[in-house]
């Protein structure tokens, strides 16, 4: 049986007020943990018939889930952000009557449905994995958060239906109506991500249920999902991230074309519009990220401490950049900036930040993984914001694009960089939640399947995903190489330039 946190002995080093802080968000969990002690292993099985089972490959199960997310999440960004860019282009074309806007929208819509198809199946896999890898979690809590997935399912339906209608009805219906058929795609992208984030926010800040005699009862699904302070910062953070990722990836592809000398109206527009979107979203993300981090500081102090590798509860805590968290609970080779952590977390340079020492080491996530990915995300995010400032400054001062090639090189790097930051961000929040699957209530090892052979499933999935990735790239290249309609080709200074556009 995994060692569990008991209210009496859990936080010996805590002062009374800190103890309250640690337990404040999980009032029920104190009760839960009392009951774990009473009910033994079977704390979360409804009717005690769903006990946790030993799983030697817990880490592999987590990695399989992680790999599936890493595949799916960049595609989700395209699902959220890309339709509005495509539809915006089509609207511009309709408004100005200029052919290159419409040509961009047409070509992008092919890319959009290709990526959506990949998103559909990688998302299907995730919903299978919830049951295959974490049956204990689903059996105990499926009813608490299932409602959000039900609503997400409908959003997904609407998105799938209208994305098909949009892509297949070019030239079949009037342009105005065609744009209208794209609107539900944008709306469903927003609602769909909101419902999924609602579940993730609930896992980080659970409420809306009681645990009595080891059973989850008194479930209030709406309260659990939508009355949660973590939902809005997380959703906004993800939503902006989607625009940053998509904007920089697409702009980066056309920046490559720019470097190759293709600078006609088509290529210029296809680069500038996504770039502008990403450059507005990136600086905003700094503020939203700060909001999200303060929510974590408030409700998940141990998670915040592991972002920062802060062992001792400290008044006026410093922020340590770089370095490595060691066995003896110090950070080696780090650069310390005094009081910055307190300032960032609580907007007060002398605020007290709770350290890792206040809970047993069993309740810590892997500090170095969390800390490194947090710093990666923040570092890249800051870099993207600086790049954005560069672009916006030149654009608003001189109404033109930067001239130096280094700007375009930077934009090309920004796309993959944004994806790395996105994934690092999710690693931060998901690994940072460990060892809990439901923060403070259910440990991941109580959730995992007891079945054998999960490792083989992992290997097979990896192989199939390689085929999928290969095909997606092959198809995108093929779309990029399709010849332009004659009027667009004439627009380009080098009429033959129909290569490498994505």
């Amino acid at each position: 049986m995994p060692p569990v946190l008991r209210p009496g002995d859990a936080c010996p080093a805590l002062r009374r007020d800190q103890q309250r802080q640690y337990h404040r968000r999980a009032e029920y969990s104190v009760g839960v943990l009392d009951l774990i002690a009473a009910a033994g292993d079977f704390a979360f099985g409804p009717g005690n018939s769903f006990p946790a089972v030993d799983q030697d490959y817990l880490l592999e199960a987590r990695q399989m889930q992680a790999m599936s997310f890493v595949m799916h999440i960049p595609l989700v960004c395209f699902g959220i952000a890309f339709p509005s860019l495509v539809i915006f282009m089509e609207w511009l074309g309709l408004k100005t009557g200029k052919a290159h806007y419409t040509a961009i929208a047409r070509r992008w819509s092919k890319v959009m449905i290709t990526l959506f198809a990949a998103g559909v199946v990688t998302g299907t896999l995730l919903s299978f994995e919830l049951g295959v890898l974490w049956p204990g979690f689903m059996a105990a809590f499926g009813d608490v958060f299932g409602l959000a997935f039900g609503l997400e399912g409908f959003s997904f339906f609407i998105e799938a239906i209208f994305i098909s209608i949009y892509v297949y009805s070019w030239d079949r219906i009037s342009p105005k109506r065609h744009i209208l058929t794209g609107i539900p795609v944008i709306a469903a992208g927003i609602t769909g991500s909101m419902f999924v984030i609602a579940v993730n926010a609930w896992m980080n800040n659970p409420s809306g249920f009681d645990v009595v005699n080891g059973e989850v009862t008194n479930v209030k699904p709406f309260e659990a999902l939508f009355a949660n302070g973590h939902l809005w910062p997380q959703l906004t953070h993800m939503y902006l991230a989607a625009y940053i990722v998509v904007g920089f990836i697409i702009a980066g592809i056309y920046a490559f074309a720019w470097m190759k000398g293709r600078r006609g109206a088509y290529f210029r527009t296809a680069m500038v519009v996504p770039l502008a979107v990403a450059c507005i979203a990136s600086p905003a993300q700094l503020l939203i990220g700060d909001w999200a981090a303060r929510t974590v500081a408030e409700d998940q102090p141990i998670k915040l401490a592991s972002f920062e590798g802060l062992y001792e509860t400290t008044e006026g805590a410093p922020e340590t950049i770089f370095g490595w968290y060691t066995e003896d609970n110090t950070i080696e080779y780090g650069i310390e900036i005094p009081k910055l952590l307190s300032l960032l977390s609580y907007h007060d340079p002398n605020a007290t930040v709770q350290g890792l020492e206040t809970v047993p080491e069993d309740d810590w996530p892997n500090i170095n993984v969390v800390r490194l990915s947090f710093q990666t995300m923040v570092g890249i995010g800051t870099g993207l914001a600086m790049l954005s400032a560069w672009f916006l400054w030149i654009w608003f001062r001189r109404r033109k694009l930067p001239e130096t090639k280094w700007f375009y090189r930077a934009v090309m790097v920004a796309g993959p960089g944004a994806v790395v930051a996105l994934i690092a961000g999710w690693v931060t929040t998901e690994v940072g939640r460990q060892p809990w699957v439901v923060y403070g209530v259910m440990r991941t090892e109580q959730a995992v399947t007891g079945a054998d052979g999960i490792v083989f499933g992992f290997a097979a999935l990896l192989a199939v995903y390689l085929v999928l990735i290969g095909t997606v790239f092959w198809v995108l290249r093929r779309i990029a190489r399709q010849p332009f309609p004659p009027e667009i080709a004439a627009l380009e200074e080098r009429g033959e330039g129909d290569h490498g556009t994505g």
Partner: protein
Amino acid sequence: MELADIPAILILVGIVAYAILAGADFGAPIWAVTARGEESNRLSESGHRSMAPVWEANHVWLIFVLVICWTAYPEVFGSIFSTLWIPLILACLGIIMRAVGYVAGGVSMSRAFTILAAVASLLVPFALGTVIGAIVDGRVPPGNAQGDIITAWLAPVPIAIGLILVASSAYLAAVYLAADADRRGEDDLASAFRTRGLVAGVIAGLLAAIGLIVLEKNVSAEFFDGLTSGLGLVAVIVSGVAGMLTLIMLWTRRFREARFMAAAAVAAVVAGWGIAQQPEMLPGLTIEQAAASDEVIIGLLVAVVIGLAILIPSLYLLYSLVLGGRFDPLSVPAADAAGVEEPLGPASRRALGFVLGAAGIGGLMLFVSDSGVTLYLGLALFLAGTAGGVVLLARSLVRTPPV
């Protein structure tokens, strides 16, 4: 009927929808392999053209089934997915491989992609069939991976049901694609699919008959009685008759009618399963015991009602565009291009005013009241308005002549 039963009915509805809509997805590539060279390309291209606009939406039904199951019967979901993880992951890998075929675009598909898609198309219905078979056969005990992860699904009943699903998917695909080819005026393709449909239909019928024998020998007497008496028997007979009628319609080239009759045959047999599976979902676990609390189920039903109010008109729009041939290549003139009525005539404009008004007033009521009659009335008005808007949009789209 208890509240606890309603989500089970929704699950069955989702399974029927998935089987009759996505089942054809998995049949189409099988047929492409049955021909060589140019004909194979034409078969696979025709399948791709019919399925590409709808397959993503079809797949959401599977997710619908999963979500309803884990919300309403969380323990049943955890038990099934832990014990039967192998066929479930196989099905999922098959779905991904099938999608690779769609992503690759269908046109000028290389033989390798065709074979990959065909393998996936055999795998998915078979694997999902074994999952149903394992539940029918009582091989999934409640609990975390409490059944045998191999013999739970590699046993006579699961294998028989898996094979029946493979055959019926191939059959459904042939029937649907024959109807689509017929609509597009491609008579030779329609004939090719008709022949294949007749063969697959006979095989599916034979397998179903064998399946009944396998069931009788293996499943619990309670289940078999449920299937062969009362309403269960009615369902089985309806399914058999509908299956026969499809063959006759296919033979006489009434493809449209064959399509709906084939769907009815599948729906009836799933209904029969639902009737026979009562009252125990898993051995020793009845629906009432497995069900989540009333509050959860009511919340779920509210979500489903809201969702369906938007989904049904949207699906109607998609299918009326697809089945009306509106997404067919432009070189084929739309049959009804002449004489379509004005997309948004005065009557429609008035209707649009009503719809927007209802949604606006409903939204306002929702916004200002947080309980009681006004809240529900507002919600109802808002939903009705939204659904009406989608219907109007759908109608105007369907009626606009192609540009």
